[in-house]
């Protein structure tokens, strides 16, 4: 009987290494997690280029336009077409002007899907030009191969 009770004691394994590993994994994922990546859109797959580098400083007053493959434009959660985009842009410009800056300080970041028709992107630029926006950034994925 005594021997049996000793066996019960042995069955409690040492959990320390497992907890160590679990904490290490948690620390790893916590460090790498990036909540700030909210400006991406599931329907946009960017083209890639070897020449671009991630910007050192974030752009001032960015207006981020997502252009999906079928030419649909997303601006701040709303969906637009090239014809109706002007309304959305005017709202953004109103915000920028309320902060005491001019339209020319704004940066239009165009995140277009790689298979979008180039003409659709040109239409987006044309509409933005018509509301006096003039700084554009064509966002692409960095290709490090």
């Amino acid at each position, binding site marked *: 009987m005594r021997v049996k009770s000793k066996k019960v004691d042995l069955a409690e394994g040492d959990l320390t290494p497992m907890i160590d590993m679990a904490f290490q994994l948690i620390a790893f994922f916590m460090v790498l997690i990036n909540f700030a990546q909210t400006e991406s859109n599931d329907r946009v797959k960017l083209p890639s*280029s070897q020449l*671009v580098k991630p*910007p050192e400083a974030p752009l001032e007053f960015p207006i981020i336009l997502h252009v999906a493959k079928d030419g649909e434009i997303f601006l701040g959660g709303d969906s637009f077409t090239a014809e109706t985009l002007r309304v959305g842009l005017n709202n953004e410009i109103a915000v920028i002007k309320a902060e005491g800056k001019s339209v020319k300080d704004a940066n239009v970041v165009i995140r277009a899907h790689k298979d979008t*028709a180039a003409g*659709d992107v040109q239409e987006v*630029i044309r509409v933005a030009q018509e509301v006096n926006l003039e700084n554009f950034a064509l966002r692409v994925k960095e290709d490090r191969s």
Partner: protein
Amino acid sequence: MKIRNREEGQETQLNMTSMIDIVFLLLIFFVMTFKIVELEGDFSVRMPLAGNDSVAMDSTELPIKLRMRADELGRLTSLSLNEIDLGQDFDQLRGNVISLIGTTTPVEGDDGPEIEIDTDYNLRYEYVIRAITAVSGYKDGNEVVKLIEKIKFAKPRR
């Protein structure tokens, strides 16, 4: 004394189960929300509305014209730089740009050459980015050599 010793020895064993439960919950949360961030960068294009800008009218230098043609599926069929046909070769395009601007040293400020990209409407955007990559510079080891920094688009073709 003997009884006390025994009791103290037994009390030091903590119950780990609840902590491990929480730790695994946290671990699963972070694993599920984990997403490898792809690094992104920008090609900057400064394009005021044509006609409003008097500076552009003063410029004596005409922009280099790049024409891109597409088939009905949006694939690239031909490139031509200032009416010189280049086929579909982006390396050749870069070579021609280097010979056109005459130097491979980077040009500072707003005085650099300008290129106007005139593309068919249905050409895939990816090819436009490849063309912009080819004309705006090349990689020499880890250094990026810049060629043309001023890029603009022609009117969209319908």
